[in-house]
């Protein structure tokens, strides 16, 4: 069995998948032994990957492309197309993106968050609206912003999908999702936002490990998309029940990549160009196009 160390957020969505994978034995079946290394923050898994303490983490292709342009050799395998969305309370008067002028808006993930960039691009193109400049934008930690939205201090909040799912269960609705923005900006279908990220060197040195892990992940996704019982089992790990759990389950299923990776990659490259145009080097890094090899070439050969 090839050992694979995966750095995950303890209560993050990836951990659900890995837990289901290990529980069902899919990793062993695919010839790998997955070790879950839990962390408390997203940054921690980044550091761990850089420091070589874990082999695989979950991140987005923009990050990978940017780091590749800077000389790193990380590469990306689609994991989920669930992305962030701007949420407003059910009763809010805000209906469209155009209504978002001059509001107090919370943005999780910082100014370089991809969902945020795409939605900004859409707003600018369709409404001539500069969201960042024309609103009172508060960047901050996702849980804090979710809480602030509940308290009503923020009129709208752009948050990660799992926070949004919980908000949804608590009387919020989606104003605009990043996937809508992506589609409007030229993507032909749902583009993976997140993916498993590992070093190409590692994948070359341990091809069985890399392929086996991807295989096991696909098997797990199949299970999670069909079995409701598995979600009941995961409830304590998800830390949700009732409507929240169902919302999380459905959003997770919505995000499972269904297209061949190559189509995904082509759309990602298109979005990258849009983003590069929107924000320039500051947003996408040195390379104006998506760095070659951002999507794992190993996926190409019929895998």
């Amino acid at each position: 069995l090839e050992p694979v160390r995966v750095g995950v957020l303890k209560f993050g969505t990836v951990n659900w998948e890995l837990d289901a994978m290990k529980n069902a034995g899919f990793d062993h079946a695919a010839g790998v032994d997955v070790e879950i290394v839990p962390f408390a923050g997203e940054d921690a898994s980044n550091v761990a990957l850089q420091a070589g303490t874990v082999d695989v983490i979950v991140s987005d292709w923009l990050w990978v492309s940017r780091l590749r342009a800077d000389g790193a050799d990380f590469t990306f395998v689609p994991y989920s197309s669930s992305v962030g969305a701007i949420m407003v309370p059910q009763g809010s008067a805000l209906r469209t993106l155009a209504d978002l002028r001059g509001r107090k808006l919370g943005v999780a993930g910082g100014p370089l968050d991809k969902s945020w960039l795409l939605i900004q691009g859409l707003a600018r193109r369709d409404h001539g609206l500069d969201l960042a400049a024309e609103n009172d934008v508060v960047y901050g930690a996702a849980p804090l912003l979710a809480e602030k939205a509940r308290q009503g201090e923020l009129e709208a909040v752009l948050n990660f999908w799992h926070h949004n799912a919980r908000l949804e269960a608590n009387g919020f609705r989606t104003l605009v999702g990043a996937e809508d923005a992506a589609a409007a900006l030229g993507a032909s279908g749902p583009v993976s936002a997140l993916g498993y990220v590992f070093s190409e060197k590692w994948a070359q040195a341990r091809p069985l490990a890399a392929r086996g892990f991807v295989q096991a992940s696909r098997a797990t996704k199949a299970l999670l998309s069909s079995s409701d019982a598995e979600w009941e089992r995961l409830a304590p790990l998800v830390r949700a029940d009732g409507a929240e759990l169902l919302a999380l389950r459905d959003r997770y299923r919505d995000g499972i990549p269904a297209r061949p990776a190559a189509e995904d990659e082509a759309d990602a490259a298109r979005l990258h160009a849009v983003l590069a145009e929107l924000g320039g080097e500051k947003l996408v890094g040195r390379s104006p196009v998506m760095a070659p090899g951002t999507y794992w070439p190993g996926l190409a050969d019929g895998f």
Partner: protein
Amino acid sequence: MTRGLPLLWSVVSLLGLLGLWWVLALGADPRVFPAPPAVLEALLREAASGDLARHLGATLARVAAAFVLALTIGSAIGIALGMNHGLDRLFDPWVVLFLNLPALVVIVLAYVWFGLNEVAAIGAVAVNKIPNVVVTLREGARALDRSYAELARVYRFSFASRMRDVVLPQLQPFFAAASRSGIALIWKIVLVVELLGRSNGVGFQIHLHFQLFDVATILAYALAFVAVMLLVETLLLRPYDRYATRWRAPHA
């Protein structure tokens, strides 16, 4: 007067604090500002699952190791700089630099260079804290009474005796300050270290529960550490203070 009953006073004081908390919590949203029973419940839950002991133990071990490292190295450097004007002039900018390097930078660099392991974690914390100890002890050493140093010189005290009998007793208040605020600072940095690259410890747990915005559990972990520190203060630091300052006039 009631010198014999410090524990009683501590208890009264803590009860007062608890009461204050409870009253404040009455009017607040329990998700955001839970009342004592909710926190107690979270505490008992974590304790029963064994998580509390495991994470608290890991954190305490890190705090203790980093504390010992930082205090010995930091005070050696601080005393040397404080007593030697030339050295101080030369290294003062270094002290300012290391004092003001963000914890995040040091921790990330340590993890990246030395791997995500305990040595890097504890080393990073120590590097963060050492400049603070240096600065405090340096002020102490600068304010040393020269007349005692002269005495030691005339009577040819050995280096060890000069330190033990002349310098350190004068630095006691600075040690007391550095160690109290030292433990606190170290613990705060350990939280960051655990957030950025450890898979256990109170910092790890606090951030996990922050993701879920579970304030009660966050408070439970924070207060568990505070409780340990109260014990350390009452059973170690206070008695040591009293011992170290027994020569000062009583009630001073």
